[in-house]
């Protein structure tokens, strides 16, 4: 019992709250597995839920925490899975349970990419002319993302029946497809459910087409950059902005010029008049902390000191509060020329 329990414990030491699981002498292995299961279940089907973030990585209660990108839950599951696989059958069992739990929660995508790809091709041949290329419905067929059959299907049991028999009374013919072809379509539809079911909008990513963003006027953007926007006060196309359009995907470039990631620094003067300068680590309504030039963390009650913030983004913020959509599009069009 001791050995197996230790393995479970190692897996759970990778988690923040592992202290709880140290009480091995007072808990049986099955208790541990139950607890582990209930923890794995916590996330829910969202990708960008703040509660998931709070839960897995501590609350976003510090400035530096908030500056980290929100981690990808799939990556986390992967880490857990790999850790589980390396350890023991009992841990593997937990990972398998987590996969089953994910499915039940509506994280639908559990088929290999090759099957999804083949399914997409098959769907375009036999289904898309009614149900649309993405299964979101077409002129004659319903939206399959809203289908009882698709959502309650398990390994093709319902979808397969409908494909083979059709709904003759509703105008859907039967299709004579092989089991493999049907399972590929099932894989594609599950992939589409996974893609479609989102509690919060996905963050704009590298896949977003730059052409969509190119609705502005390059000359107007250049004029704004050098004129009203005062961008040229700090930036130049030959200097720091050289080749910027090649460095970032389109939506990221748009976000970066609107509000880049930059860390404020501060000079803190204590009651004796001594000054400390450095990067801000903590800034709340009540406390301030910096990392000084030698790398040491120092903190004060904010009311006991004078804090002078040096915020490199102050100008960006002022602009952000008043920028129009067309000014944004024009600047983007200009920056896209800086390849």
């Amino acid at each position, binding site marked *: 019992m001791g050995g197996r329990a230790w393995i479970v414990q190692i897996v759970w030491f990778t988690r923040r709250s592992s202290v709880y699981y140290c009480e091995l002498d007072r808990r049986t292995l099955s208790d541990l597995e139950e607890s582990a299961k209930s923890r794995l279940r916590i996330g829910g089907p969202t990708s960008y839920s703040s509660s998931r973030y*709070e839960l897995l990585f501590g609350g976003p209660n510090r400035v530096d925490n908030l500056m980290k990108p929100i981690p990808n839950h799939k990556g986390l599951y992967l880490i857990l899975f790999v850790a589980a696989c390396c350890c023991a059958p009992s841990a593997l069992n937990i990972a398998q349970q987590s996969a089953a739990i994910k*499915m039940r929660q509506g994280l639908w995508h559990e088929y290999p990419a090759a099957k999804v790809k083949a399914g997409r091709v098959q769907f375009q041949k036999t289904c898309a002319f009614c149900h649309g290329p993405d299964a*979101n419905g077409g002129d004659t067929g319903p939206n399959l993302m809203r289908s009882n059959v698709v959502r309650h299907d398990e390994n093709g049991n319902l979808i397969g029946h409908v494909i083979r028999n059709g709904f003759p009374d509703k105008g859907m013919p039967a299709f004579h497809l092989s089991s493999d072809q049907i399972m590929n379509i099932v894989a594609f539809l599950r992939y589409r459910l996974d893609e479609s079911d989102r509690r919060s909008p996905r963050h704009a*990513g590298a896949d977003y087409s730059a052409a*969509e963003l190119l609705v502005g006027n390059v000359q107007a953007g250049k004029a704004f950059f050098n004129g009203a926007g005062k961008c040229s006060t700090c930036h130049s196309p030959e200097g720091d902005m050289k080749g910027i359009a090649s460095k970032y995907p389109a*939506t990221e470039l748009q976000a970066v010029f609107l509000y880049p990631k930059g860390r404020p620094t501060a000079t803190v003067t204590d009651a004796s008049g001594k000054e400390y300068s450095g990067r801000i680590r903590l800034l709340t*309504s009540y406390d301030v902390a910096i990392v000084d030039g030698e790398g040491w963390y120092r903190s004060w009650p904010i009311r006991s000191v004078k804090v002078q913030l040096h915020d490199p983004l102050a100008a960006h913020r002022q602009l952000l509060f008043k920028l129009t959509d067309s000014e*944004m599009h024009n600047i983007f069009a200009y920056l896209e020329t800086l390849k």
Partner: protein
Amino acid sequence: MRKLIVLLLWATAVHAQGLNPEALLKPPTTTWPTYNGDYTGRRFSPLTQINQANVRSLTLAWAFQTHQQAMKSTPLEVNGILYFTVPNQVWAVDARTGRQIWHFERDSGGNFLANRGVAMYKDRLFVGTPDAHLICLDARTGEKIWDVAVADTAFGYYISMAPLVVKGHLIVGVSGDQTDIKAFLDCRSPIDGHLIWRWYSTPKPGQPGANTWPNADAMAHGGGTTWMTGAYDPELNLIYWGTGNPHPVLSGQVRPGANLYTCSIVAINPDTGKMVWYFQASPHDTQDRDANETPVIFDADFNGKPRKLLGQASRNGYFFLLDRATGKALVSAPYGPQNWSEGLNKRGEPIPNLKKQPQPSGTLLDGTGTNWWAPSFDPEAGLFYVNGYRTILVSYLTRNGSEANNSDHQGGVVSPLWSQALLAAIDYKTGKIKWQHKSPAVIGYGENGSGILTTAGHLLITGDISGDLVALDPETGKTLWHVYAGGSVTGCPMTYELNGRQYLLTAVDSVLYAWALPTDPHHLEVSQQPSLTSTIGATNSRSTKVGSRASPRYPTAP
């Protein structure tokens, strides 16, 4: 037949230790019998033992560790027992000592994002689940009495709200915003969970409001979930409820029109389930700005006349003051900057600027808003309090065929840029901001938040984004007390009096902290436990001097 007799016996039995629903009609003092403390949703406690003069001496009475996800439920307190939840789990805990009485756990799939707590009726508790079931527990033991499915979890339905007991029935709303669904509000029986009436958030073709949708399919999948607990006015015999955003979320071009009754405050007759009036906080929303926030009801002066009022600080950044008999808007005023509205229509509803709908090239949106974090109305200060955010982001409408298909549920993607948390104190008569408590800004989204409690001790209790638990002066916003509580202040504070001592409860991640004023130090001496003293043979000399005081002493109110 035997079952029926048992049910009848239960329905008529005397419940000495249970909850008499009459308690919900009174301001919460020795009990906190429902999610918001009472039917009004104001979260104002008349208790004064903890007050401005002594709040600095607050001390920890006890802490309860759930070892689970962050707690978003507001505990109920009835007869010295607290009841609170995380998804699929319920605890009963001694309100004096923080010791567990029982724990209920249930296994299911579904959405585990949040659970906001239980409802209590007589000796039964009622709680919604991640797979959209409603379950009934025996409040004495935590044993399950019944379990009914309310909606199909395969379509993303779940129940996070705490049910509300009205006239001996349960009012239960649904959550679910991962695919396009039809949302509703249920009235169910506490005896066996059967459906008494169901009100749908979107109309059917031919019904009033149907002309605000392009077609039958759009309104049948138009959303408008009912995921927060509402309020009830027994005199007008109306329940007040907020509805959520329309579906699909960002791609408004597929659902032209106002999309009634999404993003609305509705008044419903609790006997019939018929809607009496509506006010749409966000006609044709394309920003996921639900109007689910607590509709707070209070009677107060407006333009020199006493009025029956309803206030809501809506997620779209507007404070609305309505006449709660008619739904007529008296005040519609933003409580922070926004750039998506072009003013108000003749009903006092914000007019969306259609140019600020998400576009494929991106739309720069500046807006203020809140979320599920309970607001509070302090009748003594005449102020309405809300925790919110100002957020700036770029919203993209995605085209068909791209990875995030715009016919999908969200219909778009976003780039969050900048966000700043604020607590706004709003003058209900004008909508003007009397004071604000702002936290340092962050890059990206700031989505963390806590509920607010005000008390007759002239205190406003809440948590800020930095994890500080704070007591502010409700009149000025000045900090009277604060402590970093080791995590995110995720819940809604509540308070109750038990055996003459006022407890203040705050959830910080997975821990429930009970704060109180220090008792007289001698009160806790060992000699008060004679049998224990004799067993362990304590010889503490001080213990012989005390034990005669009947009740602990507290610093007095000013």
